[in-house]
């Protein structure tokens, strides 16, 4: 039966259903228990499943992740939460030196099937330390999977896939999508495959590769430009690591032009990696440069409204990018 859920509602439903279905699953993080999470992502779960399954941790991101890593090594399926991507940094040693490398350094003898939920992205008034994405750091670490859904359907399906995945997965939830995105979410059990992008809009003139909060922005820009006769194909990457090269290459081979749109900073971002892949593997198919429409190379999203507005990629910038590329 189809009914709509918000993006955050889909996350709560996924967690609740998986806690029910699999005894090994438990949640841990700051303020996730009685408080239900600072945005409400775990609302009602502590009441239903208790402290044994929904645990408030000390204020220590490193310990949250290492508790998850260690307990997953004895057969549990922990889903730790990092309350804001901006605060993932104290946990980076555990994520990169332990989680990403445990299987490799033990030649498969140990592994850690953890799913780290990370609330990320710029929202109204988040400021310098409640707006970061930081996905690029982790895409650079073989051994980690990195996903970011853009729809409520994917939010539930990808989270379930992540929890069931035998490898460590960083599941980024964009906070601006929490209550602004609402779509059909099946009530039953299903998964969305990790490593598979989704074509959100078909078009023959150029390809937009994007993810997270930039998916609705790109869709809007594509709709605007369609009225001017330019049909953009919008590909929602969904998984940042491993990137779905097949879907990306097949789209670019069809349209011959590509632009990458992401909210996160420009240098060493997803756009840079995709540009390199395309120039190596689709050189003969390209009829124009690979454009990147991205956040600026400024340290973080300043709080004051004019700077915040200038930082966050808007429809206008994507439209300008489409116009520039279409003119080639």
């Amino acid at each position, binding site marked *: 039966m189809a009914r709509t859920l918000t993006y955050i509602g889909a996350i709560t439903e996924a967690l609740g259903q998986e806690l029910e279905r699999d005894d090994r699953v438990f949640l841990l993080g700051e303020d996730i228990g009685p408080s239900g999470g600072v945005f409400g992502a775990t609302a009602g779960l502590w009441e239903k499943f208790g402290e044994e399954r929904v645990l408030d941790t000390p204020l220590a991101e490193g310990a949250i992740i290492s508790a998850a890593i260690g307990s997953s090594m004895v057969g*549990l399926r922990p889903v730790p939460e990092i309350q804001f991507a901006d605060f993932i940094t104290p946990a980076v040693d555990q994520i990169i030196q332990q989680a990403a490398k445990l299987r490799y350094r033990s030649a*498969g003898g140990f592994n850690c099937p953890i799913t780290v939920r990370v609330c990320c992205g710029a929202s109204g008034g988040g400021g310098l330390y409640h707006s970061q994405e930081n996905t690029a750091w982790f895409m650079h670490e073989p051994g980690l999977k990195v996903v970011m859904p853009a729809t409520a359907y994917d939010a539930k399906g990808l989270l379930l896939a992540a929890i069931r995945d035998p490898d460590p997965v960083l599941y980024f939830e964009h906070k601006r999508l929490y209550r602004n995105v609402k779509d059909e979410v099946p009530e039953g059990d299903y998964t969305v495959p990790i490593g598979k992008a989704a074509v959100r809009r078909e078009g023959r003139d150029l390809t937009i590769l994007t993810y997270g909060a930039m998916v609705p922005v790109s869709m809007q820009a594509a709709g605007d430009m369609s009225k001017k006769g330019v049909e953009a194909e919008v590909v929602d990457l969904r998984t940042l690591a491993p990137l779905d090269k097949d879907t990306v290459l097949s789209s670019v081979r069809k349209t011959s032009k590509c632009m990458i749109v992401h909210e996160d900073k420009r240098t060493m971002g997803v756009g840079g990696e995709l540009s390199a892949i395309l120039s190596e593997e689709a050189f003969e198919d390209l009829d124009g440069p690979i454009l990147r429409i991205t956040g600026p190379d400024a340290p973080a999203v300043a709080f004051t409204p004019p700077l915040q507005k200038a930082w966050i990629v808007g429809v206008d910038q994507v439209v300008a990018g489409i116009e520039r590329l279409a003119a080639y």
Partner: protein
Amino acid sequence: MASKSNRAVLEPEIEKNGHSTELQLSLYRMLMKCRMCDEKARVLFKQNKFAGGNFYSAVGQEATEVGTAISLRADDWVAPSHRDWTANIIKGVPLKFCFAQLYAKATSPDRGRSSPAHMGYPPLNIITPASSIAGQLNVGTGVALGLKRLGRDTVVVAYFGDGATSIGGFHEALNLAGVHRLPIIYVCQNNLWAESVPLRLQTALTDLSQRAVAYGFPGVSVDGNDVLAVYDVAQTAIARARSGEGPTLIECKTYRWYGHSEIDPARYRMKEEVEAWKKKCPVQRFEKALFEKKTLTDAKKKEVTDEITREINEAVDFAEQSPYPDASELMDHIWA
């Protein structure tokens, strides 16, 4: 009144009938085995057998590991650091694999992935360490959380040095263990030097066991070169952990005879200090006591050392004859 689980000082419970002859001989055998294997590894290093890698000798510290690990069950977990290669030997990993690890051959438990002495062994729940200091404490604490969740009476023993007690991860791990009364024994081998940094620049404390007070569980300092004293404290701590009473921090006061690693001449230490500690050798000390009690004789000692020598020679042959892994393995074991 402080409950048994959070009183500051642990009172070790001595074995009911004292220490049996059988126990003492097995402690002695293991001390000798660790000493002889470690010294053999140093010789092999000098012969350039470790493919350019380093080696982190624990000679001088043997009692800290033998006393704490000898009575662990096969299912108990060990979280070693770079200086706990011998923890694998004590827990019962076949010696041939221990030497294959040093040689980084394909027959090593991690197929040569890790640097020499960074050894783990999944079948006996010994966690392959990263080099990140205190990393193993963090992961080991997570394992303890999982074990408690699963209702098992399995315990975790985590090894680290004085330096590791400074880093944030140490604090986070012990804090969490205290909150949840986790079944973990933290064994700090305080050898007074973190590579070349002396204890006085590491911490304002003299007794690192005092750190446990901050986390709400007992800490105890013990002569790390007295294997029976270490054994007794460890037995009490292990019993606490198994019965759900929570963690213990054991500070073993000890000393490493050689440098931080085999390429470190340790010129930062005074010769007098080194010589003074060599006189407190944990192996010789225990051996002397056993000879005095007539538990050990020259013949028995020879039997023990001959057997160990045989085992070591077989293990080294195995490592020598094992192949290196093929370069085609580079991308194996990144994903499931």
